[in-house]
């Protein structure tokens, strides 16, 4: 039996480092997470199915996934434009803008939540101009969309930006020299290079938005069937000591998260494989 589990190395500390890593990670992450699945297995299939297909739950999926998708697509458009402007153009304050893009990532979600709510409330800075137009943002599904767009922004910018930076401009020059106009060059040369990174960014923004809680609950209004996201429904069930219901919905969310993480991994692999080929 000569299966080599580890390549020999002169460096010390492998067993200690890996041992601690696995011990800590199992204790903090893997064992508690697997507990969620074990707990669900205590439910019968019918019970589980009834909880996760309850009309209120289904309404919450529609809102959560719908708003996350639209938010991610908005970020796909504006995130690409922002990345393009940051990489290609020089303007005063560029480094400040560049740093600011990470704000939604660094700002605690509760702070984002109360801030967006106060801005988009009917007497808020932006809300007061939307109110006469008949547009209500705060305490409606539109508010959920605003919050989910806010928190997803850095993901698209930060995945597209490095690819744009590494893009070889000589290829664009060649296209131009060969008679392509700027638009043709952009579609035929730049976009195919950006595509994998853009999709990765959109998928990451979507994945983040699906699980988001803090920034949404303040602005959403949280009306069952209308503006209630799935994480909030889990929270509500927990507060009513409906552990089985909370667990069942938790499993649904967790499986979705894992599938999304897998898709993102594949996209990243595709993206970097393309880079290698160059």
């Amino acid at each position: 039996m000569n299966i080599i589990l580890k390549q020999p190395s002169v460096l010390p500390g492998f067993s200690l480092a890996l041992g601690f890593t696995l011990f800590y990670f199992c204790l903090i992450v893997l064992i508690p997470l697997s507990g969620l699945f074990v707990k669900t297995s205590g439910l019968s299939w019918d019970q589980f199915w009834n909880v996760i297909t309850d009309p209120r739950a289904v309404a919450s999926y529609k809102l959560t996934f719908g708003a996350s998708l639209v938010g991610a697509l908005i970020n796909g458009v504006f995130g690409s434009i922002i990345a393009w402007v940051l990489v290609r153009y020089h303007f005063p304050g560029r480094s400040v803008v560049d740093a600011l893009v990470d704000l939604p990532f660094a700002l605690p979600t509760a702070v984002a939540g109360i801030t967006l709510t106060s801005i988009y409330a009917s007497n808020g800075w932006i809300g007061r101009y939307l109110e006469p137009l008949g547009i209500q943002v705060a305490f409606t599904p539109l508010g959920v969309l605003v919050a989910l767009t806010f928190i997803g922004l850095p993901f698209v910018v930060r995945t597209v930006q490095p690819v744009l930076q590494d893009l070889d401009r000589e290829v664009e020059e060649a296209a131009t020299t060969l008679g392509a106009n700027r638009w043709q060059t952009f579609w035929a040369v730049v976009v195919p290079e950006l595509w994998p990174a853009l999709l990765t960014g959109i998928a990451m923004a979507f994945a983040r938005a699906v699980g988001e809680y803090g920034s949404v609950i303040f602005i959403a209004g949280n009306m069952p069937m209308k503006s209630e996201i799935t994480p909030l429904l889990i929270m509500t069930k927990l507060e009513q000591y409906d552990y089985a219901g909370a667990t069942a919905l938790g499993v649904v969310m967790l499986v979705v998260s894992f599938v999304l993480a897998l898709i993102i991994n594949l996209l990243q692999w595709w993206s970097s494989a393309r880079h290698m080929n160059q």
Partner: protein
Amino acid sequence: MSLFSSTTTADKSLQWKDSITTESALVRRLLIGAASLFLTLFLLIPLMAIFTEALKHGLAAYLSSFADDDALAAIRLTLLVAAIAVPLNALFGVAAAWAIAKFDFVGKQILISLIDIPLAVSPVISGLIYVLLFGAQGWLGPWLLDHDIKIIFALPGIVLATIFVTVPFVARELIPLMQSQGREEEEAALTLGASGWQMFTRVTLPNIKWSLLYGVILCNARAMGEFGAVSVVSGHIRGLTNTMPLHVEILYNEYNAVAAFAVASLLTLLAIVTLIAKTVIERKTASHDRRKI
């Protein structure tokens, strides 16, 4: 013709090379305009709103928000939780990066993917799993009750949930860096007679210090700002298990907007410091790389 005409006159800072691969002035202005509009709406206005709301009734009202006992207790608890969670996750990050970056072993790729799991999980679920383990109806609940140990609705639960949410941050910064650095320098140190500890403190640590620092800062920002996961396990007991983000929620729901935004402004300053630190450290490592080349 009109596509490129502007670049010769309007923008002299662009070199000729750039000039044939850029857009017309109109397109450029439209793109910059769209980016500015979006960033103003989503980043600048919220940022300004936080401080405007906090200072709405003047500086005295702002400062008096922090004189409150519950606010102070929330600040103390947040600092305490971060003081426990961040060093533990930093230790985990260094250990994981050392094993993953410097050695080849079976299952390495799986381990790298696993470490990111907490980032993919909804914060509410991060809290839920500990309630299922340690809550009154959880597996260990009866045993904990018999031994008078409180985890859920107490400090240990808050610390656990915070650790869960912030586990990957240091490791994620260190793994790619240490992989790119290879192991030659450490091997050289060992060949020259250094002990394992000497090699680590004199070769490895100086090489990773900036990324380690950035990972710690990110981890800390998230640890102090975590809301969803902590909200599930905290129980919201004023003055006892309320962290700063939870205190913001309570104040806001009581229509005490000035106090809510005052506490929120502290968390915002923390976020701004984090962004500045990121920018500074990125410059430092970039200039460091240039020197190496």
